[in-house]
């Protein structure tokens, strides 16, 4: 019951932020949508690791969070004066 409700709410907010990722007017909006989508995917991975019995997904969530953080900071620095 808890897992179904967590997946439903996170999936709904994932759809709302995927809208911003696809239809954002500028590059910075797409970057913002990407950072928000990765946070939701981290939640989904942790839920799978904690309640689905496959604990390796928690480690995968940590690695995914680190890589998305590095990517967002580097892309934000790269497009600083070009939008």
């Amino acid at each position, binding site marked *: 019951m808890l897992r179904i409700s967590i997946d439903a709410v996170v999936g709904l*907010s994932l759809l709302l932020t995927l809208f911003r990722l696809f239809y954002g007017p500028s590059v910075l909006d797409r970057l913002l949508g990407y950072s928000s989508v990765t946070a939701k995917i981290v939640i989904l991975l942790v839920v799978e690791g904690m309640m689905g019995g496959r604990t390796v997904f928690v480690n995968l969530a*940590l690695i995914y*969070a680190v890589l998305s953080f590095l990517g967002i900071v580097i892309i*934000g620095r790269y497009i600083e004066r070009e939008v």
Partner: protein
Amino acid sequence: MNIVSTVIIYIGLIFMLIGSVGIARLPDIYARLQASGVSDTVGVILVLVGFLIRNGFKFSDSFLGLMVLFFFFTGPIVAHSIAKSAFLSKVEPSQTGDKGEDE
């Protein structure tokens, strides 16, 4: 213990849902950053703390504590990085106010 963790997880989910509605609806990059930077950090941290309490602070879940620390530091850094990038590339704040979308 189980009830406390469930309540904390649901509070985090409510934060995340409201923040996502704000990201989809607000008119401007700075307003969307305000919605995103608060809701992602607090939502993820609350859900992870809820799972930590639910499993009873075992040593095998130390990755969850590590991720709580990581999101506590990197959520504001990401929002500040995007805001600084928007400010330096001279994105104007929208003056119209009550429109749902630009264009």
